């Protein structure tokens, strides 16, 4: 579907409306739908969540934009609701968590492959190996607490093996800040990539912070506490990659472009017809927002929106398995560490992250404990034990 971002006007803001019934539609099926439908729903909820987060922050700093922000934000709120409510009730918070990590693996891999700036592409690969490890840790938790197989959710698209061990993700704050792209020189895809991954990671962090305490098992509570902390670092990393000298309106315009780009990518790949219709509708809504904000941008800043926006979208996010790419990165870069704004092969001996990490892991590492000796097996770890006939539990527990 060809879109001209500078000419297509989408659905005008005043014609974007909902009913409560419309907001709450039948969810996708945890059992029957493709794993990438869940991935898209989770990501788009994050994209809309970021839209609201940004627009509220913007309103607090720009009195003259408050009315316009309030109008657009009413629609974003309901878009997020309709998208997030597509998650089914039989999908537990831990199952949704596994979906979040699959988003962080497959979408970040797609972005890393498409990113033309080598420094930023390196950052995506760096973050990717960490979220990849989180999937493995949560899969172990899911198997060992609930007796379930995470592959029923990831559907063999993503490997369930260790990445860069979560144990090593904990860094001194300064080692999480990165260098930004240059707003005047960066390509559109670079900006869209950064806005997309920042949104996804921020929602991941917020989700873990909300659901972590809903678990009774202290091992689960500790694992969520640990990984939520890493996700906060990821938000720090990805938001610092965005040029802070973009004006508020420029950022708003880019947020709207990012939303439209992501809905368009979803439309290109969606296999569930009912969900696809929502992506199409919201693509038209976002084009309406984009036009509305472009008019504001041109009026307030007396600049042409074409300075910021391309006329056509770059290539869409690829909702496919990136197994080979991820494994290749894993083989070559699993030992990489952050040092200041750089990614290095060997952590300096005087790195402030070393004592920080030692402090945080001083009472034990939840991520290591939860996944100690864990090898993903079709049907769950117990399937291997049951098939081998070596039921050792009684022998090992006094």
């Amino acid at each position, binding site marked *: 579907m060809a879109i001209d971002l500078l000419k297509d006007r989408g659905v005008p803001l005043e014609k974007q409306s909902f009913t409560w019934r419309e907001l709450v539609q039948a969810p996708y099926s945890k059992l029957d739908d493709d794993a990438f439908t869940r991935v898209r729903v989770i990501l788009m909820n994050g994209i809309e969540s970021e839209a609201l987060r940004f627009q509220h922050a913007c309103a607090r700093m720009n009195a003259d934009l408050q009315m316009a922000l309030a109008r657009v934000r009413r629609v974003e709120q309901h878009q997020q609701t309709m998208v997030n409510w597509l998650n089914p009730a039989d999908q537990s918070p831990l199952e949704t968590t596994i979906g979040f990590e699959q988003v962080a693996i497959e979408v970040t891999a797609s972005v890393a492959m498409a990113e033309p700036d080598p420094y930023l592409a390196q950052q995506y690969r760096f973050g990717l190996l960490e979220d990849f490890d989180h999937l493995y840790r949560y899969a172990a938790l899911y198997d*060992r607490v609930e007796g379930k197989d995470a592959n029923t959710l990831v559907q063999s698209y993503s490997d369930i093996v260790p990445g860069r061990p979560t*144990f090593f993700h904990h860094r001194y704050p300064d080692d999480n800040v990165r260098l930004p792209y240059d707003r005047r020189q960066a390509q559109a895809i670079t900006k869209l990539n950064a806005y997309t991954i920042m949104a996804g990671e921020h929602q991941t962090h917020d989700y873990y912070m909300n659901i972590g305490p809903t678990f009774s098992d202290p091992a689960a509570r500790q694992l969520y506490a640990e990984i939520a902390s890493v996700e906060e670092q990821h938000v720090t990393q990805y938001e610092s990659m965005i040029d802070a000298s973009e004006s508020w309106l420029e950022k708003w315009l880019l947020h709207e472009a990012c939303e439209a780009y992501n809905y368009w990518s979803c439309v290109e790949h969606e296999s569930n017809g009912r969900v696809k219709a929502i992506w199409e509708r919201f693509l038209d809504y976002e084009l309406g927002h984009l036009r509305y904000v472009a008019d504001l941008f041109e009026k307030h800043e007396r600049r042409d929106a074409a300075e910021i926006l391309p006329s056509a979208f770059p290539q869409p996010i690829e909702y496919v398995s990136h*197994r080979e790419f991820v494994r290749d990165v894993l083989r070559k870069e699993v030992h990489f560490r952050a040092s200041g704004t750089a990614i290095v092969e060997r952590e300096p001996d005087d790195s402030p992250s070393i004592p920080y990490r030692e402090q945080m892991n001083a009472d034990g590492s939840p991520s290591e404990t939860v996944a100690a000796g864990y090898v993903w097996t079709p049907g769950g770890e117990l399937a291997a034990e049951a098939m081998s006939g070596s039921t050792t539990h009684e022998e090992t527990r006094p």
Partner: protein
Amino acid sequence: MKSETMLGTNRTGAKLAPEMLEEMVSGTQEFPPTSAGDAEGLADIRNAYSEEGEPIGTMPPPTGVKQLAKTAAAAVTGGAPMQLLDLIGERLAFERAGTRLWEALVAKHDATGGFKGGPSRDDIAHIRDEELQHFELLRELMERLDADPTAVTPAADIQAVASMGLPQVLTDPRTDFLQCLEAVLVAELVDNDCWPSLLELLAEAGYRDEAAELLCAVESEREHLEKVRSWLAAGQGRSVEAVRNLSQAETQTIMASPAIAALMGTRAETTGDGTDAAGATGRTTKRRTPRTKSRASTKKSPARTARGRAGDEKPRARDKKRLTKGAAGKTVTKSPSRRKPR
């Protein structure tokens, strides 16, 4: 009606894509675990926290003179009246929640219709009303024991956590009637295990008459279980007769157990109806759960009105399920009326 389970596009199985499965397994060989050990490490974390000894909660303090005296006496004798009140609170909460479960099953029946050998709408509504009556019996008992029936006791809280998934199944528009019957079976099995235990503990604590009065709940819960099992058998195409025979034999065993048989004797002496343990046939006795006031006839409490609920203009859930007196004076759940907010 057979289950509506149908062949479709379920994608959860790894064998759907054998080549991808092979790759998944090969990955685990190339990238092994980062530390040695097994699942027992999780238990070690749990145990370390358990050593801190934080309970999930405690019992509320006694509210009246009688309960205060009981508590003091128990402190001297080493007894545990609090455990008994905790379990009464557990049943009370479960019966109240159970009423809502059966209400949801009425709605599910309205939405999906019945099936041959399955319950009618009235069958379901009848059980719903009996659950409500059990709740009322326990509420009255708590009042008589000078305990607070509005408090959530630790056992009530834990049983509620354990059964969290039941309303999720019943109220999910995607579940079918048989799937919901499976969920209420779980609730009824718990109820059928807990009621006789509670009565035994009540009798042991000296509340023999009170326990005998609650025999009617044991009897009607036995009926509920037998019915649910029979409906499920019919829905799944199994022998209803075999299920009934099994349930009735089970009922006979329970009613003839020493604790329950003794209470049947107490009740026979009190009422003079001659039914005792020896007379229990396995079918429940004809003594029914005492009738309680229907919600329709219960006036709003001043406290509730004072909080402004009486003037609330929002549509309320209770408007959708109006309870009225049926022809036999029974509490009956009526069909929902589509009322708009006033």
